[in-house]
């Protein structure tokens, strides 16, 4: 066994390419401004909040059932946290809406409390933050979370919901009860088993990479926007490799395919 672990070097190479291209683009962005496509769901979040204000009813922002640490879905929670900060600053505070953030993980709770509180303060409405109420820890396990969420939907007469984070088997309950209560729903997730259900049940959906790109878009930070362009570069590399590999395999040359899996 050497220093390098074979079979994993390709990932390392790709990450290095990513970091380098990100920094090059960041350097270039001093002189020219890069843009990325805006997802319609970002505007829909604003629409969700304004609808709630019009109706005089609260809006739910759910960061999902994930914790901060997860070996597969950590990014979902991270995106949920970023979006929670964004909407509380950009929409909730200026429009003076009532926000409810149901949480299901002990370690995410203080982070969310911090973000929402600071976001509301940054938006100019610190009085909207009520301790233990705006951000509430509702339940621990996923189905208890779902039951409590549905309880909030019915009893607080929620007007719209924004769901960004990790969602698993409980989405059908959350989204369908939301629709029954007449909520306007915006959702985002990367859980491929649940995306099909969510896409049918909600009004606006960001699936897969859309969610991660949206977190960069809302930051309005050139340093984040350039990473999304680096994403596109990685995808181009992937597509090119796939086509070259496929053509080579067609002519009986297996070299790239073998290299891709074992480097």
């Amino acid at each position, binding site marked *: 066994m050497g220093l390098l672990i074979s079979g994993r070097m390709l990932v390392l190479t790709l990450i290095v390419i990513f970091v380098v291209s990100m920094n090059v683009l960041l350097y270039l962005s001093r002189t020219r401004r890069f843009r990325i496509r805006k997802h319609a769901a970002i505007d829909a979040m604003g629409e969700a909040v304004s609808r709630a204000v019009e109706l005089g009813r609260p809006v739910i922002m759910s960061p999902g059932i994930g914790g901060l640490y*997860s070996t597969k879905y950590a990014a979902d929670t991270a995106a949920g946290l970023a979006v929670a900060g964004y909407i509380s600053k950009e929409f909730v505070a200026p429009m003076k809406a009532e926000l409810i953030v149901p949480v299901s993980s002990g370690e995410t709770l203080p982070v969310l409390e911090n973000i929402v509180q600071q976001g509301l303060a940054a938006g100019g409405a610190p009085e909207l933050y009520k301790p233990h109420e705006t951000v509430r820890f509702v339940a621990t396990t996923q189905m208890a979370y779902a039951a409590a969420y549905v309880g909030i939907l019915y009893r607080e007469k929620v007007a719209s919901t924004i769901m960004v984070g990790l969602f698993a088997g409980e989405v059908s309950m959350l989204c369908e009860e939301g629709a029954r209560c007449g909520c306007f729903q915006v959702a985002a997730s990367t859980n491929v088993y649940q995306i099909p259900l969510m896409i049918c049940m909600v009004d606006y959906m960001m699936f897969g990479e859309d969610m991660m790109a949206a977190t960069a878009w809302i930051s309005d930070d050139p340093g984040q926007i350039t990473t999304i362009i680096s994403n596109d570069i990685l995808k181009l590399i992937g597509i090119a490799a796939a086509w070259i590999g496929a053509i080579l395999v067609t002519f009986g040359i297996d070299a*790239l395919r073998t290299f891709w899996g074992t480097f």
Partner: protein
Amino acid sequence: MNNETIGLLIQGFIILAAFSILYKDNPVFKFTENLYVGIALANWVIVGMDRTYKLGIKPAMAGNLLLVIPLILGAASYLMYSRKYNWIGRIPLSMMAALGLAFSARGLMTINFIGQIKAMMVPLTNWENVLSIVGATLAILYFFYSVEQKGPMGSLTTVGRWFLMLAMGAFLSQSLFMYCTNVIGSVQNLLEPPAYMLIPVAVALVAIDAVVSKMGIYWRSSK
């Protein structure tokens, strides 16, 4: 009545209460929801205490002083509530999040990116393989953010979207069987004696409520 019978009755009650949300939000569901939330929370705290003691405090007392670090880090996170020291509280939380993100990134790159691109390298000898690689390429084009989806790029991504929607429909149906298994399990549990004796009670309650609320509508409209 032995423990098993009582257990089955409790289970029957809980199942019916959970199913009652399909009718509407009602006191029985509210009761069960709060009961369940309370018990789940207690379970979680007890498990947490058990883990803290068995994995942390006990070995630390036995001399494994390294384990004092996580205990301190965990306790430090409570400083998040202090206005002055909340920068300390953030440190353990940030470390957890960062490690999780590093693990997610490396794992998904290996399995989802490298693995799927490798699976795309198929010999282009039959039209099915050609379709699969073309379809995958178009669907990936949908996820390009630096180009607006207009003009020729727009038409390509539209086709890409079709392939994505194809996958959504297919995977939705594929998961249907799993949902069937789950619901049948619960219904079977409910049909077990003596739990099924609760079913008529529930049906009667729903019927009474339906009649009463219908009458309420008539009263209101007649006023």
